[in-house]
């Protein structure tokens, strides 16, 4: 037991889908458990923070951390795991890019708390009670973690060795990554453990993508019946394929849905949203400003469309707060 490599899993601001994807290894999970000693995995095992604190520095071979970093507790845990681990892997889109929680960076903390605890239509909170950082009851002090001002990617909080992309990563990529990390034949630090080529290159509909798209309007997926064979862009749907890393086996396209960009950019791109904006907008047909604007308004939420997973890790990171 003692000579098996130690592995930790941790979740930060995430939905739990990344944890599911580990379980999606199915019988393969048994091989993983056979090969490694899981020393920390809050979703599945009863180890606590003090168990991690008690471990010698660098004693964990790899920590697989999913979720964006949004609270002081998450930041503390990832700093702790970084210290105890030889390798840290940003597991999934939220840890790598900020993910959907990163869209919270369009709002400040007060807006988020006011909506979640007061204005949200499904909330009944007449006394406008909000979580307190500290609360005394029966002579005992209860504390809650601090909600950070901005959502962060994992590598904005600790140095990260590798990223396993996806929302969530596929079992195949996870299996390959585990095998590679255990073999000791490590890829260069900073690598994303997926092919470094745009999804379009691997797309089964590649042949139906025209060289000149000449788009007049963009269709909304929920209002459109899709042709199951034809390139989504050619059908006037926003498909993030041109600006998104492949390796997902075109799972969404296979399910007749356009790519929404969860695998992040390739290594040549700094800002996935800007690159997608560039590719998509230059391909519209309109030539005058009013016509261009008319076409572009059919994308009602550009930040949410181009930065669905990448806002926290983007060049601008978060909305500039209004001056007071």
């Amino acid at each position, binding site marked *: 037991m003692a000579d098996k490599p130690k592995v930790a899993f941790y979740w930060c601001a995430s939905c739990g889908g990344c944890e599911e994807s580990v379980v999606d290894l199915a019988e393969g999970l048994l091989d993983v458990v056979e090969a490694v000693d899981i020393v920390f995995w809050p979703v599945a095992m009863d180890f606590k923070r003090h168990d991690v604190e008690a471990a010698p520095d660098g004693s964990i071979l790899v920590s697989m951390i999913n979720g964006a970093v949004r609270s002081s507790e998450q930041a503390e845990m990832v700093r702790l795991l970084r210290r105890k681990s030889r390798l840290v892997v940003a597991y999934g889109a939220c840890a790598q890019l900020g993910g959907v929680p990163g869209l919270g960076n369009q709002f400040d903390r007060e807006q988020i708390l006011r909506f979640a605890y007061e204005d949200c239509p499904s909330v009944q909170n007449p006394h406008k009670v909000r979580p307190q950082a500290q609360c005394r009851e029966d002579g005992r002090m209860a504390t809650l973690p601090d909600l950070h001002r901005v959502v962060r990617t994992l590598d904005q909080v600790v140095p990260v060795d590798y990223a396993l992309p996806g929302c969530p990563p596929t079992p195949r990529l996870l299996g390959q990554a585990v095998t590679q990390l255990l073999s000791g034949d490590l890829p260069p630090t900073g690598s994303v453990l997926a092919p470094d080529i745009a999804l379009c290159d691997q797309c089964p509909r590649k042949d139906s993508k025209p060289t000149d798209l000449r788009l007049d309007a963009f269709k909304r997926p929920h209002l459109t019946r899709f042709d199951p064979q034809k390139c989504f862009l050619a059908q006037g749907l926003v498909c993030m394929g041109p600006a998104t890393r492949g390796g997902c086996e075109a799972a969404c396209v296979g399910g007749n849905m356009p790519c929404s960009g969860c695998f992040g950019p390739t290594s040549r791109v700094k800002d996935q949203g800007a690159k997608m904006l560039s590719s998509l907008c230059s391909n519209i047909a309109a030539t005058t400003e009013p016509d261009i604007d008319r076409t572009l308004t059919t994308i009602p939420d550009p930040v949410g469309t181009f930065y669905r997973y990448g806002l926290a890790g983007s*060049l601008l990171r978060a909305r*500039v707060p209004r001056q007071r």
Partner: protein
Amino acid sequence: MSDRTEAHVAPRATAAWEPRIVAFFCNWCTYTAADLAGVSRMKHAPNVRIIRVMCSGRVDPQFVLEAFAKGADGVLIGGCHIGDCHYVEGNYKAVRRVRMLRRVLLGMGIEADRFRLEWISASEGEKVKLVINDMVDTVRALGPLGLPERFHEWDRELESLQRTVEAPLAEARVHGR
């Protein structure tokens, strides 16, 4: 958490502050026009750092975002008039991207006036001067954007980790736990 106020420390315009504007000028027209303005001894505000590109269509939206992220208070793109592009349609691509990028910038809280696209032909040295002076005035009125300072301010909330994580671990080692 509810009683905490957002202490947004916005960068302030001090007496020493000068707007910093990054300008991407097309080699065939606006850059040549800026050259003409120079040899004609026209004076314009010195706040612009001009970067020559082969076409306004070469300006990747990433360049604009990176300029802002690294401290520009404004970004100016200069290209050939519509119909005059040396590469036939590069400026059409530029204007399409700019129209959308403007919406993204607004969504991220960056004022529209900080980002400008102008068509300036090689003979319009005077227009280079007017556009630059006007943009410097506009951005000066808006005040500093100061994204690097803001990022630094946001990340100060990570400094407490030194106290909550790093220091207790170091102490535990000293006590041999």
